[in-house]
């Protein structure tokens, strides 16, 4: 079995040898073996190739000289000595010049000759010609998976969330080769024609001037785009920056490290995106009937629902009546599992307003633990709930900035509180509550002290590192230099504000702004953020339970 990784691979050649080919497109579970041999900053796909070779499952492999990472991947694979046949095909950067095609043609000939030597087989031109057939034209609305290669597991997961078909248009999947087959009796083929056909495909971003890629983003049948990037893959990370403002269709950017592990955290975002564009796949179980008999038109205040936001650090409950009034609310730390905390929080919130569990007609859960709570009638992602909740608190809101314990987000909503776009940072601690907590610990302060101490700063201290580990050592050395605490904290606040502000800036400016999440209590951060963004942030008591409010509102619908 010959494995290949790129749509420019001349796979038809192998039909001429009567051997099977297959794209190498499974994401690795982790990089346990690869991490031992390569630098951590090689792209995840490169590592997944090395991992696959080290596992011993891939013996025959054709790579292309796609990018820096792929070249180095080839070097490492070669060094393992674990493959029987390994070929690196050089690939020109554009298919327009005769010389480029001639050059690729020479590579095709080299591949044939090396495979002949390796396998002892003869190349069968007839079988080679038979391998060409035109693909079926695809029709109808779809969700486009664009960007860098998406592993089979990612496609499957995305498909699970959408009612529309998800079309993979990344590296290997869009492969379509058509070549004029000369008369059947031909004993040879033109490698330059073949090279030209390969290069005539819709260019990937790695190609010289990939202007033709616009058609990917402009197809009227494309109802939404999931744009996938892999950490340390610059070509596609950059393409996203180039296209994001030009796209007419809704787009969701996701980043993985090409492990199945990294998929887990994406479920929320992909589901939220499906909700946003109205293409959610709902199975019967999810479509629970609304308990209509519970609603008394005469006395809406007696009709009660609950929203539960099960976050990583805290669990929040809001109980609301049919008049959209908050009857009771509570925040407790999440401990002992999402389900247990949710149950506990709900009961205590009920107790607070003197109501009983049976009086609650409907419960909607949100937050990362939302799917673990058996009590819920439905679950909605925290993105959608935050938008709903923020709209409830401030109807003129257009941008929500949420700084949570583990992540931070910027959400753009329309005049009805529906999500128009959102960005999330959950990859690194910088710009999250966790960052502040770690720095507070380094400084030996409580979070409350951190909140106000930074306000009376004198010297403008700059914490330049975004990475928590580096920032921590910067803080340590500032302390050693006897810098005043308020100055250091002010520097830290600015660093968080820079990270979060950049997230919001990428959404584009549009007010009013609201700040939600646990960090909304931190005065220093509020001030730094307002200065950085040059806007006024709306802050209110309920900002912390924004997600739960949204969930309760969904329960009312």
């Amino acid at each position, binding site marked *: 079995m010959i494995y290949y990784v790129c749509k420019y691979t001349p796979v038809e050649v192998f039909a001429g040898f009567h051997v099977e080919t297959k794209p190498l497109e499974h994401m690795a579970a982790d990089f346990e073996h690869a991490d031992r041999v390569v*630098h951590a900053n090689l792209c995840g796909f490169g590592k997944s190739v090395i991992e696959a070779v080290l596992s011993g499952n891939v013996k025959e492999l054709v790579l292309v000289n796609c990018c820096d990472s792929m070249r180095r991947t080839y070097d490492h694979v070669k060094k393992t000595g674990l493959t029987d046949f390994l070929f690196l095909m050089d690939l020109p950067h*554009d298919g327009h010049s005769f010389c480029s095609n001639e050059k690729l043609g020479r590579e095709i000939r080299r591949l044939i000759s090396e495979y002949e030597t390796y396998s002892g087989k003869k190349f069968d031109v007839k079988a080679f010609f038979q391998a060409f057939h035109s693909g079926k034209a695809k029709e109808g609305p779809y969700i486009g998976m664009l960007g860098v290669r998406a592993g089979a597991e990612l496609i499957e997961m995305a498909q699970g969330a959408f009612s529309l078909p998800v079309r993979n248009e990344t590296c290997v999947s869009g492969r379509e080769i058509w070549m004029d087959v000369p008369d059947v009796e031909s004993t040879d083929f033109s490698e330059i024609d073949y090279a030209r056909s390969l290069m005539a495909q819709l260019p990937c971003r790695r190609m010289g001037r990939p202007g033709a890629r616009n058609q990917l983003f402009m197809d009227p049948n494309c109802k939404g785009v999931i744009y996938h990037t892999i950490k340390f893959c610059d070509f596609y990370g950059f393409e996203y920056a180039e296209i994001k403002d030009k796209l007419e269709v809704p787009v969701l950017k996701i980043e993985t490290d090409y492990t199945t592990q990294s998929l887990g955290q994406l479920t929320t975002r992909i589901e939220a995106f499906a909700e946003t564009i109205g293409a959610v796949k709902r199975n019967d179980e999810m479509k629970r009937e609304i308990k209509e008999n519970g609603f008394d038109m005469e006395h809406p205040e007696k009709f009660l629902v609950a929203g539960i936001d099960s976050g990583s650090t805290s669990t929040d409950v809001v109980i609301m009546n049919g008049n959209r009034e908050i009857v009771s609310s509570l925040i407790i730390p999440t401990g002992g599992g999402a389900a247990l905390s949710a149950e506990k929080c709900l009961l205590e919130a009920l107790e607070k307003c003197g109501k009983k569990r049976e009086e609650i007609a409907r419960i909607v859960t949100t937050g990362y633990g939302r799917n673990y709570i058996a009590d819920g009638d439905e679950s909605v992602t925290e993105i959608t709930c935050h938008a709903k909740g923020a709209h409830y608190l401030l109807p003129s809101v257009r941008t929500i900035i949420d700084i949570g314990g583990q992540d931070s987000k910027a959400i753009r909503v329309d005049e009805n509180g529906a999500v128009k776009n959102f960005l999330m940072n959950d990859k690194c601690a910088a710009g999250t509550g966790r960052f502040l907590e770690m720095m507070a610990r380094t400084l030996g302060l409580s979070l409350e002290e951190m909140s106000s101490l930074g306000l009376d700063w004198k010297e403008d201290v700059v914490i330049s*590192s975004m990475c928590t580990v580096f920032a921590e050592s910067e803080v340590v050395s500032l302390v050693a230099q006897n810098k005043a605490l308020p100055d250091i904290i002010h520097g830290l606040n600015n660093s968080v504000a820079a990270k979060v502000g950049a997230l919001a800036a990428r959404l584009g400016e549009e007010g009013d702004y609201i700040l939600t999440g646990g960090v909304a209590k931190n005065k220093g951060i509020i001030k730094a953020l307002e200065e950085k963004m040059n806007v006024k942030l709306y802050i209110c008591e309920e900002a912390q339970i924004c997600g739960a409010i949204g969930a309760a509102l969904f329960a009312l619908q």
Partner: protein
Amino acid sequence: MDIYQKFGSYMEKQIVKQPDQARKKLIVAYRAKQGIDRMFTDKRVPASKKYLTKLAMDTMIQVLSKPEQSAMTSLFVPSEPLAAAGITPYSPEAMSSFMTGSKIERPFLQKTSEEGMPDSMCSYHRVFLGAADTGVCPEAPFLIYTNLACDGNMITFPYLMDKYGIPGFFIDVPYEKTKESVQFVADQLREMNVFIEDYSHKKITQEALKQRILTADETLKNYRKYLHACKTHYIGGTLTHEMYQVFITHMLLGTNQAYQYSRMLLSDILKGEPTGDRTKLLWIHMMPFFSEPMKELFEFSDRAVVQASDIVYDACFSLDAEKPFESMAKRMVYSGFNGSPEQRIKNALDAAEYTGADGCVIFSHWGCKTTIGAAGLIQEELGKKGLETLILDGDGCNPAGNSDGQTKTRLEAFLEMLKEKER
């Protein structure tokens, strides 16, 4: 806060508000810096390196003040035809190093983050893109780029072509080091020559190009002699000087000034003191020239000296003025930065032998996949040949990507190890 830092934070604000003003202020500041250098000469700096600083500063001032006579290029684009046309090339590596040297890289990096450009990209390219996007880096009339040595070029240059709406020329360098590859590149270089003529509105006569190739060849000959002399002789200098060498042997190669510098350098080293007990290092890849612990260890130091970087050594290729295009093409195809790391390993071993290096440091520059990906392989191969090698992680253009403490500890431990081995 020292004066540079003050200048940096003042400029940061300017950049955001008035990029054109910021550029003018930079020019003024660079001119002032030259004045200061003339007045307060550091006695430890040899004449050649003073000239080097002036040359680098002049080039930067020229690019910033007369962008219409310049071109944006990748570092590895042959500079001789540009020199023949009187065009000053500037690469991301050069422009960004200057920005970082002036302590104003932060707003540029910030700008790229705001635009959503990946933080994992090489900071030479990010600072350059940020400088272009904020409007501080001026627009050149055309650009020339190549896939050598990295993908960064393939991202930055097409983006700038679109942004400015300026013409660009791309040189595709094949992976394999073969005659066909050289021919393939030579043909492109011929086209490039015409492209430069068209967009600079200057004629490049055969004679002029030949002259530039001859000058380049002489410059590189002097360089080789200089590197060899480093085995036994020492002259002091700063890390910034070391970085400038990269620009002399690439973007400025073929100019009379670069030649003049190479002559002075050779004459200085031949007059230099014996290397003595200093530990001699070969440096692989770019260098964080602003790093305090590195300055402490290597600048005018009795303890250790960085003699050469593999980027400079790689450039020392002999050229045949009768076959200008083939010569330049060959230099690209056979560069250690093209294709597999084998050539780079071979170059490093040659360079170490040639300069009598005691050890080697691979600077694993964040974002440079081509170097990072090969670092382990290079280290292993050099180790097999008895050349002790340290991999140092950091960032050559973004001070925030370096941890001074770690750099210091690792380098010192490495130097101690090398000394121990000597005993």
